[in-house]
């Protein structure tokens, strides 16, 4: 396997929170020691519930929020050495809310051309024609070029955001809940578009979502986050067929597919949702876990790698045999037969 395109090592970001003028300062570890490797051409899905740190992670990968500790490398180079602009040429965002992430006063061709302008690429005329070309590619005909975002629907605005991300020919697009604000019929259009663009431009995506069915559809790799940490990471096919972390199992059980007669699943999770400012000792998930065992409330489980992927759970300890080299991961997720659910 070639070296990953983008890598995160021990990535941590904490925020100091002060509840009131005289309240003591407290530290929130939004992201707490995350290691990730994103290979070229992959779609890394990051799933987890609100407050698990997935958006903070996205902002760090984009260079918008500096990590408290740890590092991010792009093609082996630390992004801090790389500098803001060269990073922005390679890594671009698509955010959740196409209502607040586009300048309401500009025409959309001008919005899409802005990255080119910032980087001083081309003449104004060339920038405009490049911008119209890419808008057309994402499904917005030239007659829309001078419309403002307010004149467009939510799905069209998200197309503008995608066009803006692609105009610099980035290698990696970080999509933070790109379809969560959209109706299902529009969500399907945007997912189809993202998949087409990936094939056409050889793009690599980091796709952050709370919707597991969407992630299953688009991602090749999935990382599951809980309270700032990756608790499981595996090939999409493997993760959905054989989830190992109890939290992943609960997440998968919670997916409500439009299949009548199946009823509403019992996730087996308690009500003890943890306070991120005061995370539980040991495994952060143990207060909600139905399968917890003795060490769970005292010892933090390490992320253990195996042929099935990585998992941080005491139920899946490292193999007792000292492994000389990690067993290679399955060659292609498509070669694994899917078991219908």
């Amino acid at each position, binding site marked *: 396997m070639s070296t990953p395109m983008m890598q995160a090592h021990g990535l941590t970001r904490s925020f100091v929170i002060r509840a009131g003028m005289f309240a003591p300062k407290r530290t929130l570890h939004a992201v707490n020691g995350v290691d990730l490797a994103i290979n070229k051409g992959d779609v890394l899905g990051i799933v987890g*519930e609100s407050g698990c740190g997935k958006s903070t992670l996205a902002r760090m990968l984009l260079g918008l929020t500096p990590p408290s500790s740890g590092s991010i490398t792009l093609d082996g180079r630390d992004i801090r050495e790389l500098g803001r602009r060269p990073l922005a040429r390679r890594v671009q965002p698509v955010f959740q809310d196409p209502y607040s992430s586009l300048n309401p006063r500009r025409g959309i061709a001008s919005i899409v051309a802005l990255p080119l302008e910032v980087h001083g690429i081309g003449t104004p005329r060339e920038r405009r024609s490049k911008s119209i070309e890419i808008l057309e590619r994402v499904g917005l005909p030239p007659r829309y070029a001078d419309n403002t975002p307010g004149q467009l629907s939510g799905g069209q605005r998200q197309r503008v955001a995608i066009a803006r991300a692609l105009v610099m020919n980035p290698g990696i697009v970080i999509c933070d809940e790109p379809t969560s604000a959209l109706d299902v019929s529009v969500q*399907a*259009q945007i997912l189809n578009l993202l998949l087409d663009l990936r094939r056409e431009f050889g793009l690599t995506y980091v796709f952050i979502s709370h919707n597991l069915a969407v992630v*299953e*559809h688009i991602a090749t790799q999935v990382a599951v986050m809980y309270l700032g940490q990756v608790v499981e990471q595996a090939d999409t096919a493997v993760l959905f067929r054989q989830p190992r972390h109890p939290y992943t199992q609960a997440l998968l059980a919670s997916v409500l*597919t*439009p299949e*009548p007669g199946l*009823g509403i699943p019992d996730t087996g999770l308690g009500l003890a949702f943890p306070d991120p400012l005061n995370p539980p000792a040991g495994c952060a998930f143990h207060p909600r876990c139905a399968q917890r065992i003795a060490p769970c409330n005292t010892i933090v489980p390490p992320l253990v790698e195996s042929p099935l992927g990585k998992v941080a759970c005491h139920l899946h300890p490292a193999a007792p045999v000292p492994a000389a080299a990690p067993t290679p991961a399955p060659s292609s997720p498509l070669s694994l037969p899917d078991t219908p659910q």
Partner: protein
Amino acid sequence: MSETVLDVQGLSVDIATPRGTLHAVRDVSFQVRRGETLCIVGESGCGKSITSLAIMSLLPQTARRTARRLAFLDEDLASASGRRINALRGNRMAMIFQEPMTALNPAYTIGDQLMEPYLHHKKAGRADARERAIELLGKVGIASAAERLGQYPHQLSGGLRQRVMIAMALMCGPELLIADEPSTALDVTIQAQILRLLADLQQELGIAMVLITHDLGVVARIAHRVTVMYAGEVVEEGAAERLFGAPRHPYTRGLLSCIPIPGRTERGGQLGTIRGVVPSLIGEPFQGCGFRDRCDFAREACQRTVPLHESGDHRWRCVLDGLPT
């Protein structure tokens, strides 16, 4: 067959806007029986929330409601006085809103808010109301209920707040419960817990429930009957099993094809889509099918009044008798 709790026939809502009259709900009819969950499903702007507000007489001042019949048991809601509606609402018919953060008053304790409808409608004493509140918090799965009564909404997580909302709606023992996107603002695992709770309570208490959602996954798992709305109209209605198993309206079928299903849809494959956009509902009410510009089966007849087909208790509004497979 059990008693009809809510009977809506020919409900229309027009809302005055600066750009003209918005025909938000047009000729909508459905019934909900005791012990039954009816889901109203549709995309944003289809009129599902306005329908629920019209039933509860909570429409904005600029809206005008008309109906051939709008009845809750033997009460005619269309002609009932404001005083009569006030006596029913929050008492025998209750509502759960989407945003538990905005629907709860941040300045009052959970206990005060839970007890208020009970004190008002049941003319009960505070001790009785308190007892009832503790009982219901227990029923919605909140531990150490007595201590929770003194807490304020901001001290609870989103999932707990929504449980409080459900407990509040159930305080007076309603016969009709309308839940507008009750789980949409919640995390997926919490969503499953809340829906399970609602479904269990609905069965246990034999309530007639109307659940409004955009999420077909939620509908499939909780509904007995489903009403699909599009552009202010009901386009299809039927038992959940049949509607999902054999959708008769092109819009219903289109919506279902848009949803990725792990293990069923091909990973990375093309999802179904519905081309075009929803027609404007402002101005002159349009003739014919509102979906025709987006429909793969559109034909000339779609511009005229669309017939309503019935097959058993399955109804759909389309010029086609059935969909080609």
